[in-house]
Structures are given as structure tokens and as C-alpha cells.
């Protein structure tokens, strides 16, 4: 299916990317070309083929239910763009 500029706008919102008019146009063209290419897969009949979601034939391992981390809030906040010393701070959330 060809990619329109509307698609690009919608996807850019889903992906939280601000794009300029120029980028919108350029992305529409590039994605359209890539999508046209990947549609080569349509040639294959995969009706009865199981999808590969995992590459290793294992079940997921467990950890036991014990507290194993030590509080170090300051260290985890150290890379934050904005904090109040205890919390991460973001522009006001309007619900």
C-alpha cells in the first residue's frame, strides 16, 4: 500500500516525532519506496507458516522473589534533564 503524507503525519504523531513539511514530503517518498520494496514478501504463501517470535527454543527463565537492589535515587536521577531532587520533572500533564 502506498504511503501518503497523511500516513506520515499519523505515524509521526504515534512515534512522537515532530516533522517539518519538507521532512514530511521526503519521508513519504522514502518510506513509499521502502514499503514498495518490502512488499516483495507478498509473493510468498505463508498461510501455514508459524511466525518466528523467538529465536532460542527456551522458556523464559525466572528470578526468585527477593529484593536485591539498594536505593540510590540520586544516582538514577543524575542524568535527568529536570528534577526536584526526588522526582523527575516534566511539562505539566493535562488529562
Amino acid at each position, binding site marked *: 500500500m502506498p504511503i501518503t503524507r497523511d500516513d506520515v503525519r499519523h505515524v509521526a*504523531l*504515534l512515534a*512522537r516525532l515532530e516533522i517539518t513539511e519538507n521532512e514530511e514530503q521526503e519521508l513519504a517518498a522514502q518510506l513509499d519506496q521502502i514499503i514498495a520494496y518490502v512488499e516483495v514478501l507478498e509473493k510468498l504463501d505463508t498461510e501455514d507458516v508459524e511466525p518466528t*517470535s*523467538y529465536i*532460542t527454543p*527456551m*522458556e*523464559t*527463565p*525466572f*528470578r*526468585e*522473589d*527477593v*529484593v*536485591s*537492589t539498594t*536505593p*540510590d*535515587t540520586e544516582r*538514577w*536521577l543524575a542524568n535527568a534533564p*529536570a528534577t*526536584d531532587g*526526588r*522526582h*523527575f*520533572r*516534566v*511539562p*505539566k*500533564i*493535562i*488529562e
Partner: protein
Amino acid sequence: MTDFEAVIGLEVHAELLTASKIFCGCSAKFGAAPNENTCPLCIGMPGVLPVLNRQVVEFGIKTGLAIHCEIQQRSRWSRKNYFYPDLPKGYQITQYDLPICLGGHVDIRLEGEDQDRSIPLTRIHMEEDTGKNIHDAHTDASLVDYNRCGVPLLEIVSEPDLRSSAEAGAYLRKLRAILQYLQVCDGNMEEGSFRCDANISIRPQGATELGTKAEIKNLNSFRSVERAIDYEIERQTKAIRAGESIVQETRLWDTDREVTRSMRSKESAHDYRYFSEPDLLPLDVSADWIERVKGELPELPDERSARFVSEYELPAYDAEVLTARKDVADYFEAAVGIHRNPKAVSNWVMGEVLRIVNDRKLDQELVIEAWPVSAQQLAGLIALIDDGTISGKIAKSVFEDLLDNDKSPASVVEEKGLSQVSDSAELESIVDGVLAGQDDKIAEYRAGKEKMLGFFVGQIMKKTQGKANPKLVNEILRKRLQSN
């Protein structure tokens, strides 16, 4: 009445009582200082990978078995993608197409009904909780605390088969009781460890197709759930009658104004782009594991309630109330074990004991440890009534004296000289004293005014400070009033 019926489905999020979070070793305990219980993983730092807490799966199996689900021997994890500050990775690890439990049911009984209704379940899945956004009214910023982020949740989804706020309330109470019996969730709605979203639509009575639903969030008490459902049914009914159509949307319950309102944020254009979580492999649960958990299940509210009816000959209503909480049922059985008068114990537990439990908000604890009066004291107190030492009325005052101490009821009765007067001669003279000079009232009684009897009993009790043996008083009084 209306010619519409409501169709209600509930999604319950129950925080599990694990020591650590679902995918990292941080404490899952409520109430720590902001961002205290965090690490690179639950803050979603670059490079971190989840490792599954076994206990979460154990709790999922346990809950599924308790509410009659089919436990899936293979389930898997998916990512639900959306952006929000309380969601550090930009996706929630949850179960989507292959959840751990399918089907199941919760049986409820409404007050006044004599039959259970079985509410079918769609599924139970496991997932991680989000953090908490704190909205500060005074600044242009919000704050984020990730302590809750990664606390394990069970999402229990009912079929849209509830028809009223009363059914929804009964369903939620029953479900919470089961989770508490299993000790997998403390059921605390105020602290958010037992949360509920309601999907509500209405349709013409008898229709089979579903109407357009609204999803109601922010329901943080049983009362909110019930009020919000009533409000929403009314809102939708009015709208449809007025020829408007219902918009499928998420609405917030405003606790203060008791209305639901639309969340019209433009950020909520949702397309969650679920796909299987590549950082976790499929989850296999062996038949042995399921069998072991099944063998370890405690007696659950329904079974226990049925047993209370058959073993103690309690009315179904009593049995239901007593077994709604495991600790209350345990307390009841402890008292009955000491003094076998089940109906009297039931009356006292449902009356005095639960009144104080509620006043003191002890029911917010998962397990009540500090009973206001011990089961032993309560049993002793009822024994004193049954052997005629004290009257029921005196017993109520003795009960107050037993609060928060370990005195024996007998010693309180003795200390305060509360033993019942059962000496016939003494009572006869008291009765005579009361009747003396009351000739007109005696005449009224004899003319057929039965209730004058109560007046005389009252006078006698007043004189004896309630200690007169009521049965004896009645006998003597009737004899005196009839003779002459």
C-alpha cells in the same frame, strides 16, 4: 422503568503481594520515599533487560485456579506501546494474545436473592504497573515517581455480563475477598492496590448487539464504582433518548462532583502496536506446577460459606457475611470452637465485633491481627449469657469493658457485680415494689393493653440496673398480673 438495559464489564487491576517487582529486584512495598524503590531497569535506562519474578506467575496460577479459569501451559509477553511520563520504556510489558488464564467465573449473590449468579470472566493476564504522575496545581510542571513502576499486576477481565451497579459491587467485593483469601493482593482500593475500570454501554432491553461503550477510569472505592455506573447509565440513557449517539471514549470519574467527564486529550490517539516482547521468552507452566498450586489452595469463600450453613446451621446471609473475609471467618470459628453456639457467636461477630472493626478501619488490613476483643473473650462472654449469669443487655456493657485488654468476661462480671439476679424471692419482692401504687396501669394491662408488660419490665430492669434475669421477671410479672 426504563426500556434499556445496561451492559457492564469490569477490568480489575490487582497489585500482587510480592516482595520484589515483576522484572527487577526493587522492593514492591507501598509507601517509600519518592523514587526510593527504583533501579536502572524500572526507570527504563538504556540497555536494561527484564527477568521474570517466579512468584508473580505462581500468584497468577493461584488466582486463576481459585476463580475456575483454564491455566494456559504456554503464555507469552507482549509490549503495549504508548508514551506517557509514568511509563519509562515507552511500552508496558503485558500479556496480550496469549494470557496466562482464560475463562473462569465469579459467583455472586445480591441481598434478598436466594440464588447465585455466575459472572463469567474473559481472562486474567499479568503485567507491570506504571509509575505515578503527580500533578502540582501550583506550577507548570508535573512530577514523576517510579516506585510503583514494575510492581506486578493481575488484570482480571470480566465478560460484559453485569447488569447493574449492585451486581458490579457484589462482583468486586467477592473478587477482592478471593484475592485476600489467597493472600495475593491486599485489596486496598485507597492505596490503589485494587483498582477497577468499568466498560459501560446500554442497549434496548432484549437486544443482543452491544451498544457503544464508555470506559470509566479513576474508580478508587466501591462507592465510586457503583455511583459512576449509575451516573453513566443515566447519562447514556438520556443521550440516546435525546437522539444523540454515544461516543466510544475514556471518561474520568470525578469523585467530588460525582460525574464522569470525557478525557479529551489529543494525546490519547491510541494505537498500542502490540507485539511479542523479544526480551522475554515464552512462559511455560508445567502441569505439575499447576497441580501443586491446586493442592495448596485454601478453602475459598464460597466453599466456606456452604460449610458454615451445613456445619453450624447458620442462615445463608450470616455465612456469606462471615466468610467475606478469611480473618473474620477464622475468628468466628475460633470462638465457636470454644463455645459452641454458632448463631449467637454469628450475631455478636456481625454486630458488635464488625462494628468496631469498621469504626477503627481495621478492615483495611489484609489480615486483622489486633482484634478489639479476642475470640476467646467473645466465646466466654456468650457462655455467660447462655448459662444465665448475665443478660444480653449486660453482656453488651461487659463487651465494652473487654476492649483492648485480655481480661476474662467472668472477672469483669464479678468485679463490677453484674451477675444476674435469679433469686425468685428477691425478684418477687422487687416486682411487688414496682407494681405497688400502679393500679390504673395494671387495669390497662388487664383490659388487654399487652404492651404495659414491657413498661413494667423496664421499671424492674431500671431498679436492678439491668441485672434481673429477664426470663424470671417475665414469669413472676405475668403471674402477679393475672392473679387478683
